[in-house]
């Protein structure tokens, strides 16, 4: 074990703000990205479902636009 106490751990040999600043910002960014990605998926599903109700011709089982041949 490297640390004698928690306060030593948080202090990081005097470089606390720098080390924890790095980790905190990274954590926040990762959390934000996850949040936006998951929310985007929910919104997409909701939007498309609503769209299908409003403009039924847009998606029409049985006569849908076929995929372009790739």
């Amino acid at each position: 074990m490297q640390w004698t106490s928690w306060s030593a751990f948080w202090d990081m040999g005097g470089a606390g703000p720098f080390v924890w600043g790095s980790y905190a910002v990274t954590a926040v960014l990762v959390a934000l990205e996850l949040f936006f990605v998951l929310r985007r998926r929910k919104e997409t599903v909701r939007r498309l479902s609503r769209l299908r109700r409003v403009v039924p011709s847009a998606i029409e089982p049985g006569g849908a636009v076929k995929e372009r041949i790739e």
Partner: protein
Amino acid sequence: MMNGTETETEDGTKRSRSLLRFAAPQVFYPIAGRLAPWFAWLAAGLCVAGLWIGFFVAPTDFQQGEVYRVIFIHVPAAWMSMFIYLIMAFWAAVGLVMNTRLSFMMAQALAPTGAMFCFVSLWTGALWGRPTWGTYWVWDARLTSQLLLLFLYLGFIALTQAIEDSRRSDRAGAIIALVGAVNVPIIYFSVQWWNTLHQGASVSLTRAPSMASTMLVGMLLMALAAWAYTFAVSFWRVRSLILERERHTEWVAAELDEQEARA
């Protein structure tokens, strides 16, 4: 002489070339959905292990003290940001050559994550530089080219966001990704040369002479975690993209029905 009639769907023309099977968004969509959570959990596990080693096993650096512990995110993030750009350019090229829509979507799904890692490496590097070099920033070759890489990412994202028509934004983005990729090595070497021709910055990257093996293990674990995280996030993102692009097909309709039934 003309007939404006509608035609029925013929299922006979469906994909015959098996090589491109996975390139069909319809096929990839459920696969991505199934794999993403696994990668996410893998990333979390690797991250916990890496951080444990990084903070509680790896010894204090005899030169830098504790500050060096930034390395466990700094280096994986820097690596990841460079890899992701290469992968992005690869997908862009595949898309332009083979005209597979999924490739474009992959490229666009990767970009925000790449930009995020790029920013993280800059941010952590800057915070690391302050106590070790006494300044947040020097115009060192590696730092500078990382900054330019961030601009390349931002340009790609801004361009694809600014174009609403998805077909246009796919291809336009692919072109700028490729042009950027051709330039990345040029930028890298020119920046290096530029910096050595002038009197160099008064400080330069000094790495711990012999990295303790525990440090290395921690770093590698974190790098693997970053890989797994990238997979998870880009799979999730590409699923949204697929749904949007393919919203006029039958299978998306069925998928939406399923989602609604579940909700």
